[in-house]
């Protein structure tokens, strides 16, 4: 029986993953079908679903809108929620409904008071979400302050100013989305557009007559100009470019927003692109609450896209699938479970728990890998292109290293390291994704797959290895000091693991740094320019060099090695994030400020661990005179010795 438990655990988690892959049924409106339609935004093709998801992340900090609030500890209850595409459709086509959704996140008490919002809004875990309707009275104030704050250097903004800027930007984005598909107050887009088309010739004649100071048809003029004014407003405010080029073969990049298309047709006459008729049919059916008509209109539009631009349609479908897979989120949840199982396995020496943790970590890693590969295929790029993807990739590489260690030593240390680093890095990635689109186009100097695939990958592998070494060292100190589970053999194998991983880290961070220098020589004309990011990489190399030489020179032993390895975490975090926070230099493309206090907190914990590592051995619970082996024996259990690989 015991033999089967780990497999059962694995099967349980695997079923969960399979459940995500199964198609979701939609009885009424086919939102998912609409969500797959490709549009152009931020210079790249993406489905409506991504537009909605990234906008919602920027405004609300979540990828969907919960319709009922559950307490955060009630994680087993799945509240009804509005998915990104559904929300986006509401914003674009039923704004009066969208205005009642609690999406605007404000957490600064001063701002809540200033806008007279106290007592309003939905609260969850101390965060307050407000609807657009609740903010309508304050829009003037927010705009005034927002414009002022945007003139202040982002680095010197106070928390209050940051909150104002965030709210102002969220409102602007919301307004732009509202004007991306049809004018905000439209009841029946198809009918309005037909009316506008019919009024256009008379309108143009009236405008010309008026210019020549002749008598003109006032009614025709007003109608025409009224529509044109609305569409012109859209042309200036629309967010995604939703109208595909009329001739996708000759002019693949000729995407336009709805307003531009309508204004140009209004001014010069001429045919509308075929997509417009599809869009108006969808809009009118949606507003009239006719699911069958809506579904049919979406289906015909998708057929048309499929026929005219099959590759773009495929891109939309693929990214929709990727968005809803949420591979990294699911991997993170499994890593967390594996971490708990792995830790427990040390206390009762249960191989069942250890093996369960090992198997599900492998499963999580496979899901992680699938997400990574899918992302690479979508972007057509190597895995690391920005700070977000570096977190995803560092986690991936660290888990792989941990799994290899577990395969060799089979003592639970590798799997705990793998799952812990995996979970933490995915959590970091999740938070970095709140900035919006994580697949943004790369600025000119970064637009080179060769260097992204060589320099960036090697340097990130170096980061990952340094973190793994640091985590192993943490295991050594915590287990040795606080528990009796660290036997001499485990201590020795940990020592060998840390040493080996640091050698690996040195290899990759050195080669990565030099490759970076060579890239810099190619693009900025110098191999080394003492730029902060370059210095950060150099510091990691120097630090690993120090550890290795100190060990060879006999300056440090077990605990020294562990303490230095833990400090390696601080060094790596500085290079990875800290440098970007200085906000200077050629590499400051990944600027972020909210993370500062987290980094300081992390550094404090690491220094604390080093302090613990400095406590004299006689106070450690392991390695006492009788030794944990004897102590364990007397309780009737024996620590498993590391076993050789059975290959």
């Amino acid at each position, binding site marked *: 029986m015991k033999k089967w438990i780990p497999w059962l655990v694995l099967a349980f988690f695997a079923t969960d993953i399979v459940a995500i892959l199964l198609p979701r049924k939609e009885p009424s409106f086919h939102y998912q079908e609409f969500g797959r339609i490709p549009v152009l935004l*931020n210079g790249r093709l993406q489905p409506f679903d991504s537009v909605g998801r990234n906008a919602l992340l920027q405004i609300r900090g979540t990828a969907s809108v919960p319709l009922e609030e559950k307490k955060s500890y009630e994680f087993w209850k799945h509240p009804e929620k509005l998915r990104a595409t559904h929300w986006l459709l509401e914003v674009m086509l039923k704004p009066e409904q969208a205005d009642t959704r609690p999406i605007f996140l404000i957490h600064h008490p001063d701002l809540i008071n200033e806008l007279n919002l106290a007592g309003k809004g939905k609260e969850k875990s101390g965060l307050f979400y407000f609807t657009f309707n609740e903010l309508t009275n304050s829009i003037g104030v927010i705009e005034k302050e927002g414009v002022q704050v945007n003139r202040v250097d982002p680095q010197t903004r106070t928390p209050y100013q940051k909150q104002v800027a965030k709210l102002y930007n969220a409102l602007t984005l919301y307004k732009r989305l509202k004007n991306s598909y049809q004018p905000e107050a439209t009841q029946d887009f198809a009918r309005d557009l037909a009316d506008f088309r019919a009024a256009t010739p008379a309108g143009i004649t009236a405008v010309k007559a008026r210019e020549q100071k002749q008598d003109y048809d006032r009614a025709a003029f007003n109608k025409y100009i009224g529509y044109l004014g609305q569409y012109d407003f859209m042309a200036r405010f629309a967010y995604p470019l939703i109208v595909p080029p009329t001739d996708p073969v000759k002019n693949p990049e000729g995407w336009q927003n709805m307003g531009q298309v309508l204004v140009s047709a209004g001014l010069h006459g001429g045919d509308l692109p075929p997509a417009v008729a599809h869009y108006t049919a969808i809009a009118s059916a949606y507003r009239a609450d006719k699911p069958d008509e809506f579904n049919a209109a979406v289906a015909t539009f998708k057929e048309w896209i499929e026929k005219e631009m099959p590759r773009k349609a495929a891109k939309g479908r693929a990214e929709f699938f990727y968005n809803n897979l949420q591979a990294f989120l699911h991997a993170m949840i499994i890593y967390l479970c594996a971490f708990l199982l792995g830790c427990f396995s040390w206390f009762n020496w249960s191989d069942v728990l250890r093996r369960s943790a090992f198997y599900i970590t492998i499963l999580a890693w496979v899901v992680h890998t699938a997400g990574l590969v899918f992302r690479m295929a979508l972007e057509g790029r190597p895995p690391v292109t920005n700070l977000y993807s570096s977190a995803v990739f560092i986690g991936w590489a660290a888990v792989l290293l941990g799994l290899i260690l577990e395969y060799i030593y089979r003592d639970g240390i590798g799997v705990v390291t793998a799952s812990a680093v995996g979970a933490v890095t995915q959590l970091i990635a999740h938070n970095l994704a709140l900035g919006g689109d994580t697949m943004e186009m790369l600025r*000119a100097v970064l637009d080179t797959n060769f260097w992204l695939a060589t320099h960036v990958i090697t340097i990130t592998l170096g980061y990952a290895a340094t973190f793994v070494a640091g985590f192993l060292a943490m295991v050594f100190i915590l287990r040795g000091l606080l528990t009796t589970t660290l036997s001499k053999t485990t201590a020795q194998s940990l020592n060998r693991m840390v040493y080996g991983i640091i050698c690996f880290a040195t290899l990759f961070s050195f080669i990565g740094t030099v490759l970076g220098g060579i890239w810099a020589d190619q693009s900025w*004309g110098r191999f080394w320019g003492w730029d902060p990011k370059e210095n950060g990489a150099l510091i990691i190399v*120097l630090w690993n060099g120090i550890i290795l030489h100190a060990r060879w020179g006999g300056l440090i032993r077990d605990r020294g090695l562990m303490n230095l390895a833990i400090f390696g975490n601080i060094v790596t975090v500085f290079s990875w994030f800290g440098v970007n926070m200085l906000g*200077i230099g050629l590499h400051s493309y990944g600027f972020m400020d909210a993370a500062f206090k987290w980094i300081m907190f992390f550094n404090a914990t690491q220094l604390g661990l080093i302090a613990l590592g400095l406590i004299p051995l006689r106070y450690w619970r392991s390695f006492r005179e009788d030794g944990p082996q004897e102590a364990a024996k007397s309780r009737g259990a024996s620590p498993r010795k590391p076993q050789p690989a059975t290959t």
Partner: protein
Amino acid sequence: MHLDRLIKFFCSLRLTVVLLALGLILVFWGTLAQVKLGLYQAQDLFFRSVFIYWSPEGSNLKIPIFPGGYLVGTTLLINLLAAHFQRFEMSRKKVGLFLIHAGLILLLIGQLLTDLLAQESSLHLREGETRNYTEADSKVELAVIDVTEPDLDTVVAIPHTLLRTEATLDHDKLPFAVHVRRFFPNSTVTDRPKDSMAPLPASQGFGTQLLVEERPTVTAMDQRNVPSAILEFTDDGKSLGSWLVSGYFNRNQQFTHEGRTYEVALRRTRLYKPFSLQLLDFRHDVYPGTEIPKNFSSRIRLMHPETGEDREVLIYMNNPLRYAGETYYQASFDTDNEGTILQVVRNPSWLAPYFACILVSIGLTLQFMSHMFGFVKKRRIA
């Protein structure tokens, strides 16, 4: 006996660890300092120095408090070389280590040479324009040009170092002496209001309608110092008048003396080449529907009369032109997208890091492999 101890000291691993630690602190400190000082000044203070000095407020004392980049780097180099000759023997086991450290030595020497020999300048070309010189980044020269002959200009260029000392210059080719009365390393020049009571900066030329003011020098990467100077020309002690020259002026000022016409200008130091470059086309591509730059590229015609070369080259991001020992990079552009700025680097030791990288990579891989095989073997036996 003493020599033995000295050799032992320079070979020791302990020294290596100490030097690496000092280097780490130095790099960290120098990085943080960039926030306040800017890249160039921090670089000079921390990395291109023997010591980092500290001056107590209100005194001229300079107390060395920390070793600078040159000191740490050179000592590390000595340490490496000494250890190399003393300790490493060529054996199958040690060949990896040998290669790693040989590569590091090459890297350090290469960077030292780059530091000493590299020369940076830039080339600004408008579309259609041809030039046979580049301009130094942070150095200016005072050019006094005899333009009397229609087809021959005689140029006397007074270098930055002399301008800075506000010296008096007597040149054989000039019939008058040049006095640098004031030199402003960074300055602003403004129109002089009609009712201004401020003294005239100069008695001749543009200076009669302008005001000049000294500015603190800037060090941030995206800012540039624009120098100005006030000059006086004298012939046998008799003043010919004073002139204001400035990096802001894009026209030269003319004057005549004893029937000859001269032009005077303060301009960035020119480095002439035996070949010339013409900008045919500059492109600034963006991703559709955005302002995000996708690519910057300059199509250049390269003409070298001596070798008879006349060809077109395309310089774009991550793809520089390497020619005649110099490298031309796409660095910047004019806001109207009709002009390009190329950064030009002459660095005789540019290949050193490439070889160093190869050596160290091979060495590290060998070393890593031998560790790994040893480890696997041991486990097999166990």
